[in-house]
C-alpha cells in the first residue's frame, strides 16, 4: 500500500440531507446493477404478467361480460390497467426478497458498519424498486398495445395515471421492506408475499367486474386499493370502466387511491425503519 496520501475522511456527523441523498443513490445504483446481471429476474417478472394477460384476455375473457361495454376488445382494454396494478403489487415480493437476501448475506451488516446515512439502505431499496418497476411497466404497456389496449385520452391524463402507479409502487416497496426485514429466510419472504398479495389482487376489479361477486365481498373489493387504482387508471386513460360499486371509493377512485398510498407508506415505512433499527438490539 502506498503511503497514506489520502486523508482519513473527517468524522461524519449524524448525516445531513445531502449525504442521505448521495448514499441513497449509491445503494439504489447498486440494487439496479443486478438487473442486467441477473436478467432472468426481470424477464420472468414480465413473462408472469404476460401470462396473466394471455390467460385472462384469451382464456377467461370471453366468459367475462363487462356491463355496458360490448365488443370483443372491451375486456382486453379493461384488463390491461388491472394487470399493471397487479404487477406492481407482486413487486412487493421482489422488494421483500431482495431485502431479506441482503440481510442474510451480510451486506446489510457491512452497510451498517460504514459511516453512511442510516436511511440510505431503505430509501435506496424503495427508490430503486420504483425505477425497476417503471422499466417493467414500459415493457408491459408495449405488450398491452399488441393485444389491443390503448390510451384513449390525452398525454396529461396518461402521465397522471403513470404517476399514480409509481406512487403506488413506492408504497408497495415500503410494504416489501418491512416484510423482508420481518422474515427469517428468503423462502419465507416469497411464501408470505404470495399468500398476502394474491388475494389482494384477486378480490378486486383487476380481472372481473365487482358486481359479479357475492354481496358480502363487494364492499371489500370496492375499498381495495387495487380496485380503486385500477379504476382510476381506466378512468384516466379512457378504458372501459364499469363502476366497481356505488359507494364513495367508486365515486372518487383517485382520491381513495391517494389516501391508501399515504396510509400504506405511513404505516409500513415507520415499521420498516423500526425493524431496521432493531437489528442492533
Amino acid at each position, binding site marked *: 500500500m502506498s503511503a497514506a496520501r489520502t486523508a482519513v475522511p473527517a468524522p461524519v456527523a449524524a448525516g445531513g440531507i445531502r449525504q442521505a441523498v448521495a448514499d441513497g443513490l449509491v445503494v439504489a445504483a447498486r440494487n439496479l446493477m443486478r438487473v442486467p446481471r*441477473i436478467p432472468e429476474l426481470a424477464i420472468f417478472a414480465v413473462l408472469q404478467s404476460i401470462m396473466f394477460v394471455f390467460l385472462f384476455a384469451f382464456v377467461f375473457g370471453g366468459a367475462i361480460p363487462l356491463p355496458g361495454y360490448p365488443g370483443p376488445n372491451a375486456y382486453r382494454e379493461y384488463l390491461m390497467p388491472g394487470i399493471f396494478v397487479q404487477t406492481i403489487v407482486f413487486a412487493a415480493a421482489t422488494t421483500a426478497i431482495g431485502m431479506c437476501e441482503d440481510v442474510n448475506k451480510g*451486506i446489510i*451488516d457491512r452497510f451498517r*458498519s460504514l*459511516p453512511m446515512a442510516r436511511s440510505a439502505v431503505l430509501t435506496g431499496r424503495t427508490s430503486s424498486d420504483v425505477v425497476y418497476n417503471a422499466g417493467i411497466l414500459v415493457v408491459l404497456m408495449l405488450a398491452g398495445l399488441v393485444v389491443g389496449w390503448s390510451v384513449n385520452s390525452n398525454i396529461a391524463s396518461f402521465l397522471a395515471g403513470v404517476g399514480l402507479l409509481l406512487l403506488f409502487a413506492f408504497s408497495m416497496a415500503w410494504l416489501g421492506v418491512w416484510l423482508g426485514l420481518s422474515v427469517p429466510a428468503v423462502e419465507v419472504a416469497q411464501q408470505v408475499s404470495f399468500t398476502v398479495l394474491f388475494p389482494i389482487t384477486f378480490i378486486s376489479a383487476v380481472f372481473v367486474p365487482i358486481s359479479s361477486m357475492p354481496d358480502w365481498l363487494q364492499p371489500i373489493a370496492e375499498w381495495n386499493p387495487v380496485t380503486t387504482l385500477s379504476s382510476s387508471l381506466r378512468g384516466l386513460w379512457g378504458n372501459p370502466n364499469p363502476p366497481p360499486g356505488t359507494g364513495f371509493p367508486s365515486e372518487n377512485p383517485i382520491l381513495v387511491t391517494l389516501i391508501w398510498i399515504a396510509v400504506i407508506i405511513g404505516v409500513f415505512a415507520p415499521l420498516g425503519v423500526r425493524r431496521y433499527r432493531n*437489528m442492533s438490539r
Partner: protein
Amino acid sequence: MNAIKAEGLVKIFRSRKNEVRALDGVDLEVAEGSILGLLGPNGAGKTTAVRILTTLLRPDAGHATVAGFDIVREAQQLRSVIGLSGQYAAVDENLTGRENLVMFGRLYQLPKSEARVRANELLEQFDLTDAGDRVVKTYSGGMRRRLDLGSALIGRPKLLFLDEPTTGLDPRSRLGMWEVIRGLVREGTTLLLTTQYLEEADELADTIAVVDHGKIIARGTADQLKADVGGARVEVVVHDRADIARASELLSRDLDGDAALDEHTRKLTVPAHGGAQVLARVARDLDEAGILIDDITLRRPTLDEVFLSLTGHDTAPGDATGTAA
C-alpha cells in the same frame, strides 16, 4: 493509548424459550498498533464482541470506546475509523470486485475519483487486478475473502476487526491470508481478530484472550498460554498392544506427566518440555527397552487441550451456541 477499551460488556439474546448470555462481562484492552486475538470455540461470544465493538449491536450493559469514540453515543464517528471483515464474505456477488470496492468507498464518504483510485490500489494489493472486472459470483472462496478484507480497508481504517478471517479456507488460502494480515500489521494497523485456531492466534496475535461462554477466561501471549497447559506434547503410537503398559510407564518417567492412552489407536500422549532433545531421548529409551513403535511426534497443544486445561471442558459448543455464534 488504548485503541480499544471495553469494560463489563454484557449482551443477552432472548428468544421465546430461553435466554443466552452471549457476553457476560467482558473487559478488553487493545493497545494502539497491536493485535489482540480473541480465541474461542463456536458460540463462545467472539462474534458478539466484535459486533458490539463495531456498532452493529448495542450492549445490554457495560461500555466501550474504540479509537476514543463511545460505541453507543459516537457510533457514526467511530464507523469512519474502523474496518470490519466478517466470517461470511459480505460483498455483493452480483457486482464486480471493482464495483464492490468503489461502492463501499463511496459509502465511506470518499469522493468518487478517490474511491476509484483506492479500489485499484486494493485490487493490486490483494492480487485481484485480473479478476477486478469479473462478477464476484465467479470468485473462489479465498478471492472473496480477500475482496471482503479489501472492502474493510477501503477507507484506510486505523482499526481493523477481522472475525474468523480464515474459517472455511483451504490451507493455501489461509497462509495467503496470514501473509496479508501480517502486512497490514507492519503498517501499524491496530487489529482485533477472532479465531477458533490456536495456531492462527499464535501466528498473528501479540496477545490472546481466550473466550468461553461469554467470559474471558485467560489472557496472555501465545507462549504464556501454552506454558500454562504444559507446553508441547509427545505422541507415540505403540506397535504391539502388549507393550502399551511398559511404554506408558517409560514415557511418564521420561516426561512431565502421566501418559494419556487412546486404546483404539494405541496412541500415548504426554506433556513434554524441552523440545526436540526430549523426543530423541524418548525414542532412544523406547528402542533400548525393545518397544516397537509405529509413529512418534512432538506437537504443540491443540486448542482443545488449552481449553480442557482452562475450563475443564473441551471446545464442543456449549450452551451458548446458536445466536451467539
